[in-house]
Every structure is written in structure tokens, then in C-alpha cells.
């Protein structure tokens, strides 16, 4: 669906953020885009959304160049940023003005999502809190029915019931023609809904695997002190937690542990996936 080929980007000359980055986003999945602060997650989303332009390389959405910002491409993308200012008008006015640009916008679905998020269509946007504004944007983004929805830290500012509403809405909305790409630090908030994990570090994709494969290849849990057969371990409040090669079927993925392990030694973790392929062959 989205194909990033040999992407290079920098804000300042000589300080390259992405150099020859390649990534393929498949349709029908919820992607979690992880990385440290300053790793380039938001920049990558902006490049995918066409608000930034690559210095080299291309970003193709269904074969169309995103950087050209044609209406045909922009009809297929909606982006929910972390920081935003919205106009001082009513929700209904904002929707009337913007929804007409999205050919598959679903008014009924939008109203249902507003109900779920406990927002009134007659509210003035400026009178809403940050979290409520974000819920309005999430509802609008989902209701556009665009094939690619980009979300930057969507759960920041959401209260606990709204987070679960958000997860429910996302899982209901994803289909085999829609893809959601979520950049986040709040992995615990979103771990249950992610289909694939992409991790960026120092401008490179250091990990890109489906959650189903992660859970079948890696095991997560407590590690006895006398054991040395693990890929990564760290002390936690409940003892020593670690990642090891999984031999007992599917396990539940601890994304925070995986994140730390990848930062520590991504080659070691990635090798497990290569080994698994070789073993299967």
C-alpha cells in the first residue's frame, strides 16, 4: 500500500535524519511505530502525510507519489498530529467544511463515534479540552474512511475510559482496505491492538515484525537468577524480566521489554527471526 524507497531526509544539511530508508506498509493492519524521542517518528509521519518533502527517494501510496500532494493522494490519507490548533467554530461547522473533501466520509459513523466519545456535535471546538479535541480528531479521522490513517501519539491526553474507547474504535474500523499507523511511546495503551511493530532508531528501521511472529519467536517473562539462556534481561519491581527464544507456542508480548531489548541489541533480536526462517526451511 505505502512504499518508502531510498528515503533521505534532513532538517539541517550535514545532519541526516533518514538516509536511504526503505519501508513497506501493508494494507489491513494496525502498525505501531516505536522509537526514542528524536528518533524521527513524527518526521516519518509528516513525510508520509506530505507535509514534509523527502530530500531523496520516494514515498508511494498505491503507486502515487505522496510528495506531489495531489488531491488524489491526499484523499487517501488523514493525519492526526500530537500538537494541533483547531479553528474556533462548532464541530458540525468544521465537519461540514472538511468532510466534503473526503469522498467516503461516513456521517453516521462519525456521529456514532462522537457519541462513544461523549462529545456533542454542537460544541464549539475551542471550548473543548485537549483530550476532547483529540477525540474529535480521532472520530473525524476514522470517519473519513481513508485507506491510510496516521496517528501521532493518539492516546496522549485521553482519559482512561477514552483510551479503551479509542482502542475499540480502531479495532472496529480497521479493515482489509484500511491501515492505521500509530506513532507512540505509550506501548502499554496500544499493545493489544497492534498487528505489526516497526521500530526506528537513529534514522533506521531496526525492527519490523508482525506481533503474531514476535509472540511465536520470542518469549517474555520472569527469568531465574541462575539462568543464562536469555536474549535480554532487566531488573523490574517484580524481579528479573527477560526475553528468550520461545519454544512453547505463542506468548504474550511485553512491548516495553522488547523496546528496551531492541535498543540494547537489535541484531541479536533480529537474528532470532532469521534463525526461525532458516529452521523452517
Amino acid at each position: 500500500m505505502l512504499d518508502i524507497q531510498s528515503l533521505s531526509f534532513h532538517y539541517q544539511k550535514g545532519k541526516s535524519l533518514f538516509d536511504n530508508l526503505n519501508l513497506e506498509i501493508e494494507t489491513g493492519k494496525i502498525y505501531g511505530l516505536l522509537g526514542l524521542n528524536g528518533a524521527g517518528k513524527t518526521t516519518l509521519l509528516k513525510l508520509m502525510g506530505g507535509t514534509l518533502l523527502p530530500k531523496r527517494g520516494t514515498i508511494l501510496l498505491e503507486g502515487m507519489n505522496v510528495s506531489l500532494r495531489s488531491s488524489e493522494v491526499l484523499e487517501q490519507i488523514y493525519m492526526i498530529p500530537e500538537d494541533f490548533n483547531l479553528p474556533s467554530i462548532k464541530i458540525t461547522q468544521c465537519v461540514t467544511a472538511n468532510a466534503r473533501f473526503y469522498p467516503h466520509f461516513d456521517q453516521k459513523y462519525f456521529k456514532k463515534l462522537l457519541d462513544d466519545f461523549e462529545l456533542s456535535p454542537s460544541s464549539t471546538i475551542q471550548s473543548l479540552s485537549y483530550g476532547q479535541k483529540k477525540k474529535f480528531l480521532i472520530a473525524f479521522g476514522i470517519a473519513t474512511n481513508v485507506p491510510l490513517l496516521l496517528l501521532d501519539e493518539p492516546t496522549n491526553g485521553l482519559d482512561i475510559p477514552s483510551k479503551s474507547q479509542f482502542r475499540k474504535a480502531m479495532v472496529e474500523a480497521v479493515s482489509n482496505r484500511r491501515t492505521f499507523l500509530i506513532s507512540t511511546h505509550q506501548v502499554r495503551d496500544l499493545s493489544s491492538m497492534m498487528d505489526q511493530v516497526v521500530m526506528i532508531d537513529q534514522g533506521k528501521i531496526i525492527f519490523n515484525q508482525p506481533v503474531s511472529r514476535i509472540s511465536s519467536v520470542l518469549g517474555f517473562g520472569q527469568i531465574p537468577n541462575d539462568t543464562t539462556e536469555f536474549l535480554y534481561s532487566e531488573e523490574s519491581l517484580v524481579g528479573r524480566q527477560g526475553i528468550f527464544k520461545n519454544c512453547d507456542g505463542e506468548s504474550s508480548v511485553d512491548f516495553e521489554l522488547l523496546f528496551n531489548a531492541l535498543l540494547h541489541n537489535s541484531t541479536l533480536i533480529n537474528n532470532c527471526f532469521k534463525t526461525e526462517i532458516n529452521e523452517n526451511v
Partner: protein
Amino acid sequence: MLNKKSIVITASSLTGVLVALCLLNTWAGNHVFSVDYFVLQAKLFFVIPGFVFTSVIFKEISSFANGWSYFILPANRIEKMVAYWLLTTVVYIIFSLSILIISSLIISGLVSLLFEPTFFVFNPLNFQFQELIVHYLVLQSVYFLGAISFQRNHFFITTLFVLLVLGFLVLFSILGFRLIFGDWSIFLNADTVSPEFFEQIKLWIKVIYYGLLAPFFLLMSYLRFKEKEI
């Protein structure tokens, strides 16, 4: 910037200043309302706010938080730019001329009330104003480019830039004449050059000013807009 409240406040303030200036002038001028004074002020109140408005038209899209929704809106780049151009030309001209007509009626009423009976309605379709609108459309394109090109203080930087370019053009023209004619006599004695030559020069300047300047700056604006990132 473009919300109803700020438009109403700005328009009311400018109308208030214009009314006050005309009343003061009437008071100072033996209590006789001067139409010429109103027209002179109306020209300034039409052109300068227009350039300022044009200069800040892209301010909203200069930061990501303000401009993201505009950038991701499914419309072509040319459509987005034309929308801003229409807003700062056609919509602005109609709106500001309407304000000037209303101002003239308010001034008439107040002058009649305070000084002597007067009835004056500003006619924006007179030749003087039509010519001014054409000049506005030409020069506005420069401020339009400035609005896209500069990060802040768009109006002042563009005005400075225009003055510098004009200074350069004057210098370039003087030096050009000096090179073509070999001496400075053309400036001292215009009779040495045929009137046809001057006519020809005037024609070229008119063609460049009325026909090429605005399209050139709008094209440059589009090229800058194409590369705009937030």
C-alpha cells in the same frame, strides 16, 4: 486570523479611524466636508490594509500546529494557492469597498449632525478607484510572494525588499542609459531623443507592469508554495 471576530474588530477599528479623521478634517476646514480628503484617505485605507492582509495570509500555515489541516486537505496545490489569492484580491476588494461605502454614509450622517447638511456616498466605480484597484492587483502579487517567502515581519520585509528592488532598477536604468547613449545628456536635455523612443519605452514599461509583473510574482509564489514544508 480569519475568524469572524477578528475581521469585525479590524474592520470596525479602521472604519472608526477613517470616520474620526474625516470629522477632524471637516472641523479644521471651516466645517465643510472635503470629498477629496475622504477619497485620499479611502485610497490609503484600501491599499495598506490590503497589503498587510496579503502579507499575513500564509501566517497560519507557517507552523505545523496551525497549518497541518490545510496541508493534508485533499485539494491540489494550485487550488489551495488560488483560494488564498482570491481571498486577498476579489474577496478583499469587495469587502473593503463595501466598508468604504458604509464609512462614507456614516461620515455624511455625522457631518450633517455636527456641522452642516451633507450627503455623500462613496462611488468605488469611479475611474480613479478602478485604476487604484489595478495597481493594487499588480503590487499585491509582490506581497503575496513575500507572504510565502519570509518567515516573519512579512509586510515590513516585503516593503523593504520592494524599495531595494526599485532603487536597484532606477540605478540600473540610469547606468543603462549612460551605456547606450554614452553621456548623461539624455537627463539634461530630453530633446536629444525622439518622442517615439520615449513612447516606445513607456509602452514597454506598461506591458511589463500591467501584463507581466503580477503573473511573474504569482508564478514565483506558486513555485515557493510547492516546496513549502511544515
